[in-house]
């Protein structure tokens, strides 16, 4: 033989070695592609968060006018606030009180604000400029003034420093959310109002103060500056209460049944596929279900958090069932065998031994399910929760919206310049709630993580 084994060996090694550089380059390229994918994903998400934060955080501070308001007795010509006299029936008193209140409603509160603003500007304002002047302040403030007085009539004749919300357009102007160089016809405020706003801002009378309105008020159509999330928050709270009270017990119970008691046959197989499929059914389909069954067939009221909660319950149920089953499955059979071995019944085994051990996992899954329900929008639109609601709902049967739906409504508001920031702020609130829920879930999981 001319070629020895050793030579053949050397030849083979050379062949391999020759291709190595190329293969290692490929390796590097592949690895870099992977890293690029991770970085791309993270960057996109970072852009999302940053762009929403940049727009939303300033909206937590809102242009507010700090002025002295004189409760002028010449303007407020009202009888004394009725007090209950002895011997008077409750209904008679209430009637009297209501009459007084409607009297108070007729007072020209705007005039008080006008003169306060006039003082602040330090200039006589001609009556034809009154419109421009009133454009400075949110139209809700005259009602706020009335409520304040009705609460405390002793203010009559006094001068009080009040903080009043500037109108939405002034807020936009001051924050520079509109191009200041646009010509008059495209500005939302008149030249005069703009000049005054700038003057008051320079004088420190208009300041960006923390916006309590965002949290304490409900949505408002007439005075966008005072629109807040309180109503939507209550609505979401009611829905989450319904979801927690229904979907957690139902989900855990059915997971226990399927995992621990159900016989393994075609039927339970079908139920399993059914549950997994339900978890992947588009949420809007649940909205259609709610519209057709809860509203159309059962006649439950439109826009009610109860109905929203029921729809979200059905939607979250599969998530919780799947999480609970996974948690139960991770408990090793040896625990069950040990309990059964000393004579416990199956029910006792499950409830005394398996369930407590699976609890952290169940809790985590439930929290994640609830967080998912909290952010859901589409099905709620179909059961009328996108209606405009001016009151904070007191019960789950009253009309209400929800946080994500409020975001949807605000983003569609015509006053884009103002509501873009307001919507972002609402998103920050919603994300804050959801992230805390998620963080809680992750923390729970880490804390109770057990390796069997």
């Amino acid at each position: 033989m001319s070629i020895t084994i050793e030579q053949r060996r050397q030849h083979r090694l050379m062949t391999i070695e020759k291709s190595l550089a190329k293969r290692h380059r490929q390796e590097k390229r592949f690895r870099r592609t992977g890293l690029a994918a991770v970085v791309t994903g993270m960057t996109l998400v970072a852009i999302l968060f940053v762009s929403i934060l940049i727009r939303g955080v300033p909206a937590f501070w809102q242009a507010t006018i700090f002025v002295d308001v004189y409760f002028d007795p010449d303007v407020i010509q009202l009888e004394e606030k009725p007090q209950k006299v002895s011997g008077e029936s409750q209904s008679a008193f209430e009637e009297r009180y209501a009459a007084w209140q409607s009297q108070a409603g007729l007072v020209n509160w705007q005039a008080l604000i006008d003169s306060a603003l006039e003082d602040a500007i330090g200039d006589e304002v001609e009556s034809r400029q009154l419109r421009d002047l009133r454009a400075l302040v949110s139209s809700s403030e005259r009602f706020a003034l009335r409520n304040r007085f009705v609460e405390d009539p002793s203010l009559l004749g006094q001068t009080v420093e009040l903080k009043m919300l500037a109108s939405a357009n002034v807020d936009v102007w001051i924050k520079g959310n509109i191009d200041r160089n646009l010509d008059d016809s495209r500005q939302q405020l008149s030249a005069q109002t703009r000049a005054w706003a700038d003057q008051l801002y320079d004088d420190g009378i208009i300041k960006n103060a923390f916006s309590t309105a965002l949290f304490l008020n409900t949505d408002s159509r007439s005075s966008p500056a005072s629109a807040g999330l309180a109503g939507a928050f209550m609505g979401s709270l009611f829905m989450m209460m319904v979801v927690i009270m229904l979907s957690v017990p139902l989900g855990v119970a059915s997971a226990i049944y399927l995992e621990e008691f159900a016989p393994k046959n075609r039927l339970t197989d079908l139920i399993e596929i059914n549950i997994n499929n339900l978890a992947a059914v588009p949420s809007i389909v649940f909205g259609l279900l709610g519209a057709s069954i809860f509203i159309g067939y059962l006649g439950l009221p439109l826009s009610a958090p109860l109905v929203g909660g029921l729809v979200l319950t059905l939607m979250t149920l599969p998530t919780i069932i799947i999480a609970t089953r996974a948690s139960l499955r991770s408990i090793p059979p040896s625990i069950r065998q040990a309990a059964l071995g000393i004579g416990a019944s199956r029910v006792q085994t499950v409830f005394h031994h398996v369930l407590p051990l699976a609890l952290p996992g169940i809790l985590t899954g439930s929290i994640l399910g609830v967080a998912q329900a909290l952010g859901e929008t589409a099905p709620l639109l179909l059961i009328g929760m996108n209606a405009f609601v001016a009151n904070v709902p007191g019960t789950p049967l009253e009309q209400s919206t929800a946080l994500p739906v409020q975001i949807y409504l605000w983003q569609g508001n015509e006053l884009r310049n103002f509501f873009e920031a307001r919507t972002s702020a609402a998103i920050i609130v919603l994300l804050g709630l959801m992230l805390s829920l998620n963080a809680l879930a992750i923390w729970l999981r880490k804390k109770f993580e057990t390796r069997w």
Partner: protein
Amino acid sequence: MSNLALIATLLLIMAMAYHLGLTRSRAVAAEQDVRMHSRPGYYGALVALWCGLPAFGLFLLWSFLAPQLIEMLVTQQLPTELVASMSDRELTTMLRRISAVAEGRNVAGGATPEELLAANHMARLQTFELYSLVAVMAVMAVGGLVYARRHISPQWRARNHVERVITWALAASSAVAVFTTVGIVLSMLGEALKFFSFISPAEFFLGTTWNPRFSTSGADAQGEFGLLPLLWGTMMVSIIALLVAIPVGLMTAIYMAEYAPPWLRNVAKPIIEVLAGIPTIVYGFFALIVIGPFLSNLGDMIGINIRTTSALTAGLVMGIMIIPFVSSLSDDIITQVPKSLRDGALGLGATKSETIRQVVLPAALPGIVGAFLLAASRAIGETMIVVLAAGNNPVLHGNPFEAVSTITVTIVNQLTGDMDFASPQSLVAFALGLTLFVITLGLNVIALIVVRKYRQQYE
């Protein structure tokens, strides 16, 4: 509120029954000096169940039947010529007004004398109904309690009975999920059939024009309900989304599963999980204020006319939304490929990427395809992003830079506002919903079966 009070009272009586059963079983044991079959708590629980369950069942049945019965009685009492003169719809409205008056509320335009009379009658009936309900429930509760308590004996297998009730309750809970599916199918099928009585299925499924006029424009102006533009729009947006999400998501999963150091994995995995939970309305808003204008400007720069709200905008953002979904599903699948296969390839002298591309991915392929199908189903059913960013333009065209409309957007458009379950304009939402449900069901079931087969292979 009275219902709540009733249930609270019942629970209170049950608590009492529990206690009675408990003490009774102890007394029996002491008296006869024997061991009872079950522990005292089970006797207590059984007595409580005997006391509460029948009464509660009655309550449910009663609450369902009684209002209908009362309505019937009130209708009978109304002057017959009046009833005869009214349509069904008018009668329903009138009954609603009567019951409002009976509850002491005011009705628009004030109540007519007939309504007032009927309301009085109704209020009387309701009072009677409530009292009789309370009485019957009390009898049943006490009866159950006494019977069960008497029955306590050492031979009575209380634990087995209680456990059977528990098992049945658990089984009933798992039926809820089944009923949900049945409810979805039945409700949508029912409403969709109503819709098909207006518009033929062929017209719906094969129509190429979508132009539903308003329901107010009269019965003759029915509009056109062609599904195809919507279906095509849905496909276009979903395909763009998957083109974004699949490569990025899959490569992310590969990097995370195979290359990332443990610390990065520990940090990134929860982040990805949280991202998957961000509400889609947030992504929609992001599309509207950031991505849309950005793409539009980009288009201006390179000379393409890209609309701010377009298939591209919606698809791109939807893709971003699905990335975490694809990546965490694929990650699960990839990490399930046994280490021995990797070792096999590495042991032959394969580089890591060769191992991944030639051994791990082919082995994981069925599972990954399943994950893609689930992602596709999610893209097709996604609503809020397309509502905000797709532009609602239900026209058949192939330009991704133009606005489109999707099935989900149209469902929202047709069903928000006033809900009128009699006009094709509203009912079409259910036909669309049914279409959507069937498409996603198909994708989901195939995906689930594929993934399940895959899991079993490596278990």
